[in-house]
């Protein structure tokens, strides 16, 4: 009798557990971040660093230097314009800064509109590619761009310049 009672209690417990486990309902997701919209506007360079990629790979003591104040980098400004929500035109105003981007105006495009990694700047037959290091969305209002310097003979990136911009 006791055994029957225990078996019944066990079956009751199992069926209770099975019926109690219900998947949580998915909450509605927020609207996807619009990265392209966050890039729109005029940006002023605030920080420039230079990384020796070979020294970094080898763990050498001198890997990176802050070059912001060595030359008037903070004069540099870039403006991204959208055209109906898509990448449109761009302009650069270097002022006295080294020309971190040589093209002064043209159009820009991205490799992936939802989560872009590379921005390609085009003016006539000339193009320059910069890599996005950080999106200016959410808590961050800093645009980070990187420019790689590639050795022609080996195809290896030997220097990377990282630039941080603040929205104007």
């Amino acid at each position: 009798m006791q055994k029957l009672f225990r078996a019944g209690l066990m079956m009751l417990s199992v069926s209770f557990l099975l019926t109690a486990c219900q998947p949580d309902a998915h909450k509605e997701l927020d609207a996807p971040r619009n990265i392209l919209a966050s890039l729109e506007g005029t940006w002023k360079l605030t920080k420039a660093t230079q990384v020796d990629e070979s020294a970094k790979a080898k763990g050498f003591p001198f890997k990176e230097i802050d070059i912001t104040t060595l030359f008037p980098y903070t004069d540099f400004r870039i403006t991204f314009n959208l055209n109906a929500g898509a990448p449109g035109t761009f302009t650069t105003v270097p002022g006295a800064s080294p020309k971190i981007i040589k093209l002064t105006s043209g159009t820009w495009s991205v490799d992936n509109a939802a989560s872009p990694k590379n921005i390609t700047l085009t003016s006539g037959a000339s193009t320059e590619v910069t890599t996005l290091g950080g999106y200016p969305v959410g808590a961050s209002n800093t645009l980070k761009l990187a420019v790689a310097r590639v050795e022609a003979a080996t195809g290896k990136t030997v220097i990377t310049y990282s630039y941080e911009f603040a929205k104007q």
Partner: protein
Amino acid sequence: MKKLLYLILFISAGLFAKAQNPSFSPATFTAEDQVTLTFDVTGTPMAGSSEAYIWLWGNAGDSPLNTSWTNSPDAARMTAAGTNKWSFTFTGTVLYGLPPASLSNFNFLVKKKDGSAQTSNQGPFNFDPLVFTPTMLRVFPGKVGADDVVTVNFDKAYGVTANEQRMTPTTATITMVDDAGNNVGSPLNLTVRKTGETIWSASYIPSVSFTPSTGRKLFKFKYKFNGTVLDPGGATITVTSSETEVTFTTMQ
């Protein structure tokens, strides 16, 4: 008279204009990188030769290809790279069968298989280090193009002479050289900044500070540091460090 002057200038330019010989691709390389050296033997006893062999040696001694001066092996045979031009591709660690730390430089000459003709010795040429070796003069980044920010550094802790060990640097002098071996413009004097306990640095952008003549490009630069020390009498005297040179890396 004017034509004669132009003719003299033209001949002089021809005499002084010379391509880099030998040349290396890539321009800088470690003992673990594959490098192709190309050498123009015009004007040497090897000019006009139908075949060429490399004879290579360095701080690690003779290369294993130096088996016999009068009978070089096929592995040492160089590849034709144009009229009187020969190239040879190798990787230091593979050629020697040694770790990179054992290889710091090499020399070479070009010879006939039987050793009946040869060029003069070329070198020494340095392998880029794989382990960081502190030196008195150092450039950052290790490989730079003519459009890059170049920082030259002086660390007096590694000075060789008494003056280099005692000096307080004030300026760095940059001398630019084009691909024809001619100086470009006047030497540039940069004010230094202190970046470490014993380190002083100066930065410049070659293509901003120097403009090569038409048809030429910036090829390499030399740099040295200038400063002051106190003589035994307490008077300030000006001193200069030794000089070193850096060849630009060609960037895409």
